[in-house]
């Protein structure tokens, strides 16, 4: 028995696999940005009310976030280019039509992201340190920008699948596609974003790259582990109704059952990993390895199930001829060669920086 996506015709399977792998990379940074912007937004709002947290662990988390969010946003955008490319190959007509129907509303995500990017730099500027009202306002605008982008992507995805609604959506000129499925989906992405961002932040703190004192870092990691323990199973549970598995017909449910089992197992493993971190927050790496592996499995299961439902909704027969034609075009070898060179360059950069940080000199 073959499992999705390996049961698909070769060209479609190949592009679905590439979409899943690159989307997984995008999700890591996107989750960091989504949850991070909310953490900073909430902290900023509390600051505006004069409720500045005294807990140094929480302060350490927000400091790391402020420091790394600009990079995380640019990495999320860069990582998003590849899945965007493969979506255009897999579901070109559907994706383009949804883009066109939403028009200015959809296009607005580009300037909104530019605004968010600049404001993140402003947020970490020394110039506004201590100005709580301004900091709070900036953080909340960033949060609103990120949520707007998340909402827009979900709206675009759902509209792309609702072919029957296209003519009327166009005729009315409505740039907003109202669907009751949008809010629960956004809820899922937020909760799962918190679970994923908790792991990533805990990794940052445990690797001591943040300049945070060990004792404070341990308490912050413990705090993040609590978030992870709660958010991971919650994300798994919310996914079932939010991503449409409950409402899908029997055939679709059975088709995605193995993927949902994998996602559920991943959520359980991740929660166990976070629990392990909670028990040993001063030496959290083993727990974080388990949590990260579990989250990876969870995301792969959920993302694959999402693609299964999308392909079923559109109908593979209407797509496969295009995939077959596009799949014959050359260039893969060139891509793979440069992927190896690119990864080697990135590895060299990381190693060089690591050695410089620890006073070990240049790599030979």
């Amino acid at each position: 028995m073959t499992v999705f996506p390996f049961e698909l015709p070769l060209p479609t399977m190949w592009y679905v696999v590439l979409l899943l792998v690159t989307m997984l990379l995008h999700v890591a940074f996107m989750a960091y940005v989504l949850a991070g912007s909310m953490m900073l937004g909430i902290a900023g709002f509390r600051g505006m009310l004069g409720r500045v947290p005294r807990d140094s662990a929480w302060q350490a988390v927000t400091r790391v976030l402020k420091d790394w969010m600009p990079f995380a946003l640019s990495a999320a955008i860069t990582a998003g280019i590849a899945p965007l490319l493969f979506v255009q190959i897999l579901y070109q007509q559907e994706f383009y039509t949804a883009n066109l129907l939403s028009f200015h509303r959809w296009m607005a995500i580009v300037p909104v992201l530019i605004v968010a990017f600049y404001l993140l730099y402003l947020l970490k500027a020394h110039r506004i340190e201590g100005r709580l009202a301004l900091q709070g306002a900036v953080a909340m605008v960033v949060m609103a920008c990120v949520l707007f982008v998340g909402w827009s992507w979900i709206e675009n995805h759902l509209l792309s699948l609702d072919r029957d609604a296209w003519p009327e959506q166009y005729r009315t000129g409505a740039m907003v596609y109202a669907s009751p499925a949008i809010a629960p989906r956004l809820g899922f992405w937020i909760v799962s974003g918190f679970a994923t961002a908790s792991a990533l932040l805990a990794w940052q703190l445990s690797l001591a790259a943040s300049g945070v004192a060990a004792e404070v870092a341990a308490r912050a990691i413990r705090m993040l582990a609590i978030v992870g323990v709660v958010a991971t199973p919650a994300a798994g549970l919310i996914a079932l109704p939010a991503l449409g598995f409950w409402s899908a017909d029997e055939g679709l449910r059975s088709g995605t059952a193995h993927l949902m089992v994998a996602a559920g197992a991943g959520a359980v493993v991740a929660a166990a990993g976070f629990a392990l971190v909670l028990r040993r927050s001063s030496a959290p790496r083993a727990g974080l390895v388990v949590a990260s592996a579990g989250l990876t499995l969870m995301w792969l299961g959920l993302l694959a199930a999402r693609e299964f439902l999308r392909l079923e909704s559109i109908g593979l027969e209407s797509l496969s001829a295009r995939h077959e034609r596009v799949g014959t075009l050359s260039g893969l070898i060139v891509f793979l060669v440069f992927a190896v060179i690119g990864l080697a360059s990135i590895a060299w950069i990381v190693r060089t920086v690591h050695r410089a940080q620890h006073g070990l000199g240049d790599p030979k």
Partner: protein
Amino acid sequence: MVEPSVFYPVNDFGPAMKGLVIGGLGIFHVFLAQFAIGGGMLMAYYQWLAMRGKLPEARQVLDSYFRYLVLVSFVIGALTGVGMWFTSIQISPATIGKMVDTFHWVWATEWIFFWVEVVAGYAFYRYGKILSDRARLTLLLIYSVAGFGSLFWINGILSWQLTPGEWVETGNIWAGFFNATFWPSLFYRTAAAMVIAGLVAAVVVNTMSDVTREQRTALINATARFMLGVVAMPVLGIWFLLAMPADSREWVLGGSIAMTLFLNAAVGASVLIGGYAVVGLWRQKLYINGATATLLLALAFGATAGGEFVREGVRKPYTIRDVLFSNAVTPGQVAHLREVGCTTDDPFPLRDADRYANDQLRTGALVFRSQCAVCHTVSGVNGLTHLMGAWSVDQQRMNVAKLQLTKGFMPPFAGTPAELEALVQFVRWEAADHPTAWAESGDAATFAEIKEWLDEAGTEPAPIARRDRSSNGGAE
């Protein structure tokens, strides 16, 4: 077998021509991205000068806000690059779809370069000060190579649109990628990137308060040497001109006054910048202050704008030469659409159907939407009521029926005689300020005459646009 049409919803940009929208964003994107590419190279050059002891104060520029400018420009360049994808979808989904389908591995390869650029750029930005000179130089070289690489890949795709070369017959993407205009375009853009970065650096150097006048002069002279590629730009421009298809060359050399003017504006601005860089800076006859540098930078923006306008314009009547007309109809579909109609299978209704006085006008509005709206408005920029308003009704019918002969850079009309008549009536009705009553036109004799004109014109593009098809973009 005729490739089936894929219908997409068409948005109305109001009085603004769609080309202006994508052109505006494109110019902004190209300018920023070229600055980021040239900026990376210039930083590597500064690092080399500093560590060789040739210009120790170059390190101060590197550690000034210049690095932020390069980094921020890269990110905004990447974002507006995604914006270009989205805007291209809005303007012509068929064109960008074909580009993505054909070159998806090239785009995926470019994505790898983006990653290297992001990581190298941030590593330098965050940790540059704790790295050794050797590591700093290597990092900046990696950043520069990655930046140049992203230009290399996208340049192949963009130049393929104008001169797809043997790809049209063989489907070999590398024959299309390394096409007739690839190299002149690549070298020209590289020189432009270096010039833009040099001018930004000249502005930055003039704002640095911790260097002496002598140090500032030395920095600006070194920056001018970096910009010397500007002297090659006229040669590269001529090479590009010779490599483009003959009909495209004719548009820019007087055939289309708008394109000729934009080309001249770009050339004029480049000559001014080049003259200043060579005479004033390299020969050390002049000192460039912040205001002058800013003015030259504005000229560089103008040159970029002119160049990009010309690059977009010379492809007419195609968006991908020999493959896809500007209105997303393929050459192979024209004859078929003249039989079945371009509005027959369109699933998207009119947004304002009640506005029109009769069904013929509604059909005309649909024809305008599918055939004309990508480049024209009704009464705004490049509006049909302005372009066709002074013609008699028979002139309108004949000129649209023989569209590719009326104007060589227009595609052949791809619809039935009834649709053509509907379009003519639609334009006349709009020009008449859309009265509530409007009689339907078109008796059998009129349709027969239109059909005769359509047949006379044929389904091929204008002879001038076919002239050098065999050489696919080579000079005649």
